[in-house]
């Protein structure tokens, strides 16, 4: 049975805008899944519908086989949501935020307290337990939302841009945490992100959504393989004067000390370096212009 299954999902907002236009999506249990898309693509809308925050216009959604219309309670029990926007009572001590959330799932007080402590500790917030949410930094608030989403121990954790505005160190720590609960507790994770590097290093499967439609879906490795070309930026130590032609590669001279070269899939770099050596160009360094998923993504949503 799929962790998440969506058929022909549509959402038209009251102002007439169609944010989601017939999405089909499946996520296998235990998967680490990325939903990628530019601003306004319909990611948050889709997630809102799955979690019961937004009414859909048509289509169907099942979470571990529980239809969100026919068995909303069963579906909701399987789901934990970390929304894009902060949504807690900012005056309440954060420990109460998490304990109360457990209460909404019918978890008894004693168990709720124990779990709250467990997750707040895991997310590095236990020292702040008495503070109210308004006293937390942005990154802490994100982690609080993760703790709150896990307190009823859902099977599926959905995170809408969990690492937006989070510094690198904490982002890495969050990645490790998510990978751990994915591997060890077997929790299915679905996340949206604007950092494609994040999707590339964390996720197994990805769907790319643009203007309310899924434009591509598959294994991350497979999509990367399908990326037809890769662009490299080369810094050279000898200024380039005059025209530089390198057979079989598309070269553009960015400045007299910087080149941009597009390398087609399977083309390799050896011939490139032979030509550069022959032209007496000293290469100091070489790097990807963007990461590969990013390039693929940009091409798709253009």
């Amino acid at each position, binding site marked *: 049975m799929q962790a998440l299954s969506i058929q022909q999902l549509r959402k038209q907002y009251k102002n007439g805008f169609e944010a989601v236009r017939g999405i089909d999506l499946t996520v296998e249990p235990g998967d680490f899944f990325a939903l990628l898309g530019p601003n306004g693509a319909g990611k948050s809308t889709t997630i809102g519908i799955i*979690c019961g*925050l937004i009414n859909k216009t048509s289509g169907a959604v099942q979470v571990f086989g529980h239809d969100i219309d026919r068995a*909303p309670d069963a579906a*909701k029990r399987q789901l934990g949501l970390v929304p894009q*926007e902060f*949504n807690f009572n900012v005056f309440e001590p954060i420990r109460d935020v998490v304990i*109360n*959330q457990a209460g*909404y799932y019918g978890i008894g007080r004693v168990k709720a307290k124990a779990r709250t402590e467990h997750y707040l500790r895991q997310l590095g917030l236990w020292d702040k337990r008495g503070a109210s949410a308004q006293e937390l930094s942005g990154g802490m608030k994100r982690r609080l939302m993760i703790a709150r989403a896990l307190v009823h121990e859902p099977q599926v954790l959905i995170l809408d841009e969990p690492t937006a505005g989070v510094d690198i160190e904490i982002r890495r720590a969050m990645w490790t945490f998510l990978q751990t609960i994915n591997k060890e507790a077997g929790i299915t994770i679905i996340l949206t992100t604007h950092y494609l590097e994040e999707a590339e290093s964390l996720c197994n499967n990805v769907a790319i959504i643009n203007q309310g439609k899924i434009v591509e879906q598959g294994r991350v490795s497979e999509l990367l393989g399908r990326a037809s070309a890769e662009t490299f930026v080369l810094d050279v130590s000898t200024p380039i004067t005059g025209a530089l032609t390198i057979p079989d590669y598309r070269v553009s001279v960015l400045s007299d000390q910087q080149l941009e070269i597009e390398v087609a899939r399977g083309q390799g770099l050896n011939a490139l370096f032979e030509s550069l050596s022959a032209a007496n160009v000293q290469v100091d360094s070489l790097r990807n212009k963007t990461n590969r998923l990013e390039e693929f993504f940009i091409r798709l949503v253009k």
Partner: protein
Amino acid sequence: MQTIVPPAINSLLYMVIFGTLIGSQIADMEGFRYIEYIVPGIIMMSVITNSYGNVVASFYSTKFQRNVEELLVSPVHNLFILAGYVAGGVLRGFAVGCLVAVVSLLFTELTIHSLWQTFSIMLLTSILFSLGGFINAVYAKSFDDISIIPNFVLTPLTYLGGIFYSIRLLPEFWQGVSLLNPVLYMINGFRQGVLGESDISLGVAYAVICAFIGLFGFWAMKLLNQGVGLKD
């Protein structure tokens, strides 16, 4: 504390100004001293405005801060959500109502004719206005929207509901019009519970309040189930 004391001060002022200062110049009303006559109305007014005000403000701010989403993602039933807010409104209404009753002892003796009737009318009224506050909050899109109804609907209805006068003092036509005001039944029902004297029949008072509770309860549940103002 800061939520129940200010409304009580408000009522204290009513009692001082209307009850003691002006009231001393006024003849008995329906056989009671004026202050005695208006105290039940003033208690009810504070129950009504505080039940309503508590629910409209707390649900609107939950919506505004978006923490209503904590409830929406969880399997809590809409009926429980509604019951929770109504319970909050009733508690607040009662707390203020009791405080006002205590304050009124400074001005008059409060001998309660029928405790059961007083209690039940107060409870039903605060349930009704808590529901009203909830519905108002569901529709509200701004902070202005949560003060319009209290100011332009609730206040006139309570003032015209016979807090300060018996409708028998009104010309016949206006008596008829007053009977269309549901708040009249609550205030008079409550007053009769306290004084044992009323402008209207008790059965009608209970029927009107219960009918409105049914109507508002149904309305509020429908809004919640459809997710109006929350999920669209």
